[in-house]
Every structure is written in C-alpha cells, then in structure tokens.
C-alpha cells in the first residue's frame, strides 16, 4: 500500500516534469501560436504586419527554448522562469497534454463578451490573444487595470478591461467550495436514530470543535464568538480545501494567486471593522484612531502632538494587518510550489536521470509532505489571526462589560 503510493507519486512527479518540459507555447500570455498566426493572416491583408508578428513569435520561441542549440547547456534562469510560469493563472485547464476549455467572460468598452472557450475567442474574429512581448511592454507603461491578455482584431484599444472569466484558479476555487459544502452536508446529514456518529461526521466534528475551542473562543468573548463563528468556520474550511486541492497532482492552488488571498483578507478586514463599529459604537470607533490619546490626561500641546503622530500610525496599522494576512498565505502556498518545481527542474538542469531519482524525487516528496502540514497550518493561522483581529476590535466592549461585572471570559 505504502510502496504503491510512493510509486504513484514518483510517476506523477515525472509526468509533471514532462509537462513542464513539453509545454512550449501554451501559457495564456502567448496562447496557441499557430491559431494566432492563422487569425492574423486571415484578418489582415497587410503582409508586413504578419511578418512582424512572425518575427516576434520566432524571437519568443528562441527565448522559450531553454535548451538552446546544444543539449548540454541549459539556462538556469529561463528554467526557473518556466517553473514560475506554472503558477500563472490560465484560461484553460492543463492536464499534462490535455487542455480543457473554460468559459471566458469580460467587460470592455463595447460591453459584455462571452466566449465558451479560448478557442472560440480566437476564432470569433473579434479578439485574439496578445503574445508575451506585448503584455510585458504594456505592463511597463499602461495602467495595470487596463492591461488585458486579449486584443481587438481591428486594432482599436480595448478600453478599461474587467475580467470575469472562469480561469483555472476560479475553477479550482469553485471546486474547493463545492467540496467543502458537500463535506458539510455529508457530515451534517447523519440520521437521528444513530446514537454513535461515524465517518465524515467524526472527522468534520473534530475540526469544527477545534476551530471553536482553540481558535475562536480564546480570542473573543462568547457573544461575539457565537456571532462570528460561521465566518471563521467558513474561511477555515475554504482555505483548507483550497490548500489541499493544490496538492492533488495536476491541479492548481487558488491560494497561490494573490488576488484570491486579497479577497479573503478583505473579508476579514470588513468583518473586523464591522465588529469594531458594532462593539464600540461609531464615536468610540473613530476615537480609537487616535490611539487612545484623546482620553489621556495630558497637557494640551502634548496631546495634539501625540494625536498627530498616532493617527497615521493607527490608520496604517489598520491596513497592514490584512496586508500581512494576504501576503503570508500567498507566499506560503507559492513558495512550496516553487520549491517543488525547482527541485524537479534540477533533473532537467543537470540533464541526468540519476539526479532525478536521487535528488529531485526524494526531496520533492519531502517538501510535498511538508506542504501537507503547511496547508493545514496556514488555514489555521489565517483563521487564528482573523479571530485575533476581530477580538481586538471587539475588545473595548469586553472591558466595558467587565466593569459591570457581566463578563466572564475563559
């Protein structure tokens, strides 16, 4: 059983390695090169434009060719870039060599557009994919909100671009939430006649009780804990599912995209502020931005100076907490994947199957096992820190109650 598992992991690791090596022009930024060329050739009669595109593409192919002309010299930098590219979001699901189409939806200056797949978009005659050079150039100069991976065939500007596509990350995020919901339903729908819970119920109950007793209750008073419990359970299971889903071979981790973690951190930020306003009242809430200096018994000059110093610090402190939450989760999930990718890339760098079996596979397996731990710890840390922040904001209220002898925490 155990040996079978290890063999399966080795085979999948090698397959992933093969996928990295064989994938030439399939990233979303470059797209399907022949199709782009064909559409460009069909849609425009200006031959020099076609030539320019072809030239750009050949340059790009040269840049992508990590093996260059001789088999024995591999550019480590380009190989590393190839590993990083694997973390990029894509408009298709990539399973080694199979590409599963996903719907593309976006708003631009002309309104809402829907294409059932990337292929449909390229053959619509309205839009094509930009190649990587154009993207890089635009990212340097243009407003990042307006940089789109697509361009209009008639050459006009896209205007402001809002992407609502079901990309690979969005797909796996939806899958993770679906799994979390199904697990909750499975665990919750135990028949009332069974006296002893078993299976999924036990597993989920253990985790729910853990979140309740170890994360939420120690950090805030019971009223707030019961009120915000659904939120903490939701983010815990959602992040946990997303992190674990990324460890299944051939999938992506949505939490290794900074946009996803930003949305999660934003949810915590909003909850924290709402908790602060509800617990303290709007007046007290605004007052806490002075760092408590307003109520302090100080000379008036001192007070003004201290408030002038403390207010910006408090306001910055407001945003650094969710920012740190965002970067922590993102960086943890990304780092693990980069390390695994880099270890597999070592075999390609040395062009040696011995290195592959003695270094790449064992070390990648080790990091993989570590990632299983990290997937849980990061979900735990995110939830804990969210609870700590909410508890801090609802704290003022707690002290108030304590004076009246109502509060019993712990």
């Amino acid at each position, binding site marked *: 059983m155990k040996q079978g598992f290890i063999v399966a992991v080795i085979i999948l690791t090698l397959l992933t390695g093969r996928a990295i090596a064989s994938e030439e022009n399939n990233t979303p930024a470059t797209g399907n090169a022949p199709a782009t060329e064909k559409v460009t050739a069909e849609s425009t009669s200006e031959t020099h434009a076609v030539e320019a595109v072809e030239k750009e593409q050949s340059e790009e192919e040269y840049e992508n060719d990590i093996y260059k002309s001789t088999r024995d010299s591999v550019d480590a*930098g380009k190989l*590393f*870039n190839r590993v*990083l590219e694997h973390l990029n979001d894509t408009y298709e699901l990539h399973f080694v060599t199979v590409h599963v189409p996903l719907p593309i939806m976006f708003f631009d200056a002309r309104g809402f557009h829907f294409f059932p797949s990337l292929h449909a978009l390229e053959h619509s005659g309205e839009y094509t994919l930009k190649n990587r050079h154009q993207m890089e150039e635009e990212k340097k100069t243009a407003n990042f909100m307006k940089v789109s991976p697509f361009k209009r065939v008639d050459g006009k500007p896209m205007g402001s671009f809002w992407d609502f596509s079901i990309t690979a990350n969005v797909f796996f995020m939806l899958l993770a939430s679906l799994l979390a919901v199904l697990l909750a339903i499975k665990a919750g729908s135990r028949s009332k006649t069974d006296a002893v819970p078993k299976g999924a119920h036990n597993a989920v109950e253990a985790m729910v009780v853990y979140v309740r007793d*170890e994360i939420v209750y*120690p950090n805030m008073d019971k009223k707030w804990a019961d009120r915000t419990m659904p939120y903490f359970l939701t983010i815990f299971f959602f992040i946990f599912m997303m992190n674990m889903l990324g460890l299944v071979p051939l999938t992506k981790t949505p939490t290794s995209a900074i946009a996803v973690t930003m949305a999660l951190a934003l949810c915590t930020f909003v909850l924290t502020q709402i908790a602060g306003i509800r617990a303290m009242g709007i007046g007290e809430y605004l007052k806490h931005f002075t760092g408590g200096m307003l109520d302090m018994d100080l000379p008036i000059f001192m007070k003004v100076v201290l408030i002038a110093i403390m207010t910006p610090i408090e306001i910055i402190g407001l945003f650094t907490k969710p920012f*740190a939450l965002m*970067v*922590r989760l993102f*960086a*943890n999930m*990304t*780092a693990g994947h*980069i390390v695994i990718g880099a270890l597999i890339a070592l075999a390609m760098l040395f062009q040696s199957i011995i290195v592959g079996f003695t270094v790449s596979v064992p070390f990648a397996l080790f990091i993989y096992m570590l990632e299983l731990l990290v997937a849980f*710890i990061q979900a*735990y*840390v995110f939830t*804990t*820190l969210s609870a*700590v922040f909410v508890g801090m904001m609802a704290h003022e209220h707690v002290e108030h109650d304590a004076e009246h002898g109502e509060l019993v925490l712990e």
Partner: protein
Amino acid sequence: MGNSAFAYMAAGLGAALAVVGAGLGIGKLATAALEASGRQPEMAGGIRTTMIIAAALIEGVTLFALVICIILAGK
C-alpha cells in the same frame, strides 16, 4: 557580469539572509515555548497556540523578503 547576474546574486544572498534571520527567530521561539511547557505542562495547549501565532508573524516577515527574492530571480 550583466544586470541579471547581480539580480540572481542578490536574490540568492537575500533569500539566505532572510532564512538565517527566520531560523534564529523561530528557533528562539521554539526553545522558549518548549521550556515553558516543560515547566508547566498543563499550559502546553495555550503556549502552543501562542507559539504558532508568533511563528506565523516571523514567517510572514521572512516571506515578504522571499517574495522580493523571487521577483528578483524572475527578472
């Protein structure tokens, strides 16, 4: 040596330095936590929670540094 060579070197040195700092920090943290829970085993649960939060904060700062290194190496 071109600009990118310096970028790779900076990324490597930066990652190494960040990891040294984080290793020392988390090492000290774990030492203190283990000693504390050795003295008072009944508090081990609470100490572990506090330790993980503190470790996450240290790790967060380290990862800020590592993200910069990754950006440099991707140049």
